[in-house]
């Protein structure tokens, strides 16, 4: 068992660098996130926000630096990476539900395959989660029958079924019609209120202002702001972030 830092830090990044070819996507990122914190990551597209999330659960391998989860470094490969991923949930912009499986099978897959739950236990858990995200009646539907908002809520339930300690949201509402954004954000807000640690990449600044504890602003692979949302909106320190706020608020 790895020893957890005393101050409740769940995720720590230290000098994390990541490039795709000559293009530096993350440039020596230092960051730590405490248990129960809801952190929103904002920034222009291509600034490395998604890559940051993908590095935290090992979907992308980092080039340099260290990422620790509960005090334990994220391994580059091998069994350890699979075990760590099972402790973090991830929600994608394009939902990525499994189209050949029913909603219920989507939500039970992880617990059955990875945690070894019985089908019955997994289904009980799945139905409770579908209730929680507000679509218990869709258990036997296939993803193609659902609206985008419903698919994303199923995707959240699928991630929660693994009882993760950390939830990563990668632009969860960017592919949604405006009227469906609300229903997904509501689910996420409830999650944050229930104390789930979460990192949310989003352009929804209303959500950031209302829900998150900290707002990170990333530009060109570096964290240029790290502040409570009110402080960020009132007076960001960097020029780049002020421009961003201007555009968002006066668009």
């Amino acid at each position, binding site marked *: 068992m790895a020893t957890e830092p005393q101050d409740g830090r769940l995720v720590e990044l230290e000098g994390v660098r990541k490039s795709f070819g000559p293009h530096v996507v993350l440039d020596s990122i230092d960051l730590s996130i405490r248990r129960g914190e809801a952190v929103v990551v904002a920034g222009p597209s291509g600034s490395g926000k998604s890559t940051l999330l*993908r590095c935290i*659960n090992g*979907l992308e391998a980092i080039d340099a630096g260290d990422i620790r989860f509960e005090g334990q470094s994220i391994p580059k490969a091998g069994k350890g990476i*699979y*075990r760590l*991923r*099972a*402790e*973090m*949930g*991830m929600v*994608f912009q*394009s939902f*990525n*539900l*499994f*189209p*050949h499986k029913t909603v219920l099978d989507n939500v039970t*897959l*992880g617990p059955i*395959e*990875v945690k070894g739950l019985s089908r019955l236990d997994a289904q009980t858990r799945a139905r409770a989660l579908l209730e929680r995200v507000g679509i218990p009646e869709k258990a036997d539907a*296939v993803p*193609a*029958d659902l609206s985008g908002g419903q698919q994303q809520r199923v*995707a959240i339930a*699928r*991630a929660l079924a*693994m009882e993760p300690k950390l939830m990563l949201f990668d632009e969860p509402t960017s592919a949604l019609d405006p009227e469906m954004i609300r229903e997904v954000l509501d689910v996420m807000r409830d999650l944050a209120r229930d104390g789930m640690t979460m990192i949310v990449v989003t352009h929804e600044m209303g959500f950031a202002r209302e829900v998150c504890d900290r707002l990170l602003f990333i530009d060109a692979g570096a964290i240029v702001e790290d502040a409570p949302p009110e402080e960020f909106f009132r007076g960001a320190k960097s020029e780049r972030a002020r421009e961003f706020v201007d555009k968002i608020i006066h668009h």
Partner: protein
Amino acid sequence: MSVLLDVLRRHFPEFLSGFFVTFRVVAISLAIAISVGTLVGALRVAPLRALRWIGTTYVEAFRNVPLLVLIFISFLGLRRAGIGIGPWVAGTASLGLYTAAYVAEAIRSGVFAVGKGQIDASLSLGLTYRRTMTKIILPQAARTVIPPLGNLLIAMIKNSAIIGASILALPDLLKQARILQARTFQTNETFFWAAAGYLVLTLSATFVVRRLERRLAIRR
């Protein structure tokens, strides 16, 4: 018209036996093509470069040699090299391994057609790479690949006639028709019924593939 039916009635046993030889050739070759093709297709998308190289070599070797040449090599060439195999083995192996190269390519494209997001989603739940393949990617790829596999099956049924026409001389549908033609000189009639026999096989294949496709289709 009556001559046509007359030929079929008089020589029905010969036609039928030829039909079943062709059917058996196709069935055995199909089993070889699907099993070898899936294996080679898996090699083509393997994470290890050496495995991918083996797969590519197989595909290029068997796709770029004419089927008739494969038959000559397997039947005559191997015999000269001291490995004597019978016409059944030579014929079905040639046809099966030849078609397997195409099956492999179809499966490879099916795997690529499954979005990368599916791999991400599966890995993010904590599934291993191997389980992601068997539980998420291959089941979807197999469904995508059914129509092109149907095309390959039809091509294979027709290619099987090469076995009957070649030095292997298996008494398949075409070979039986040629024997009857030489005996009766009723050229158009005998080959008409041979063609009809192939049509029965290809249309049945089309029917089965369509049903499979409908049963397994993924709605998106």
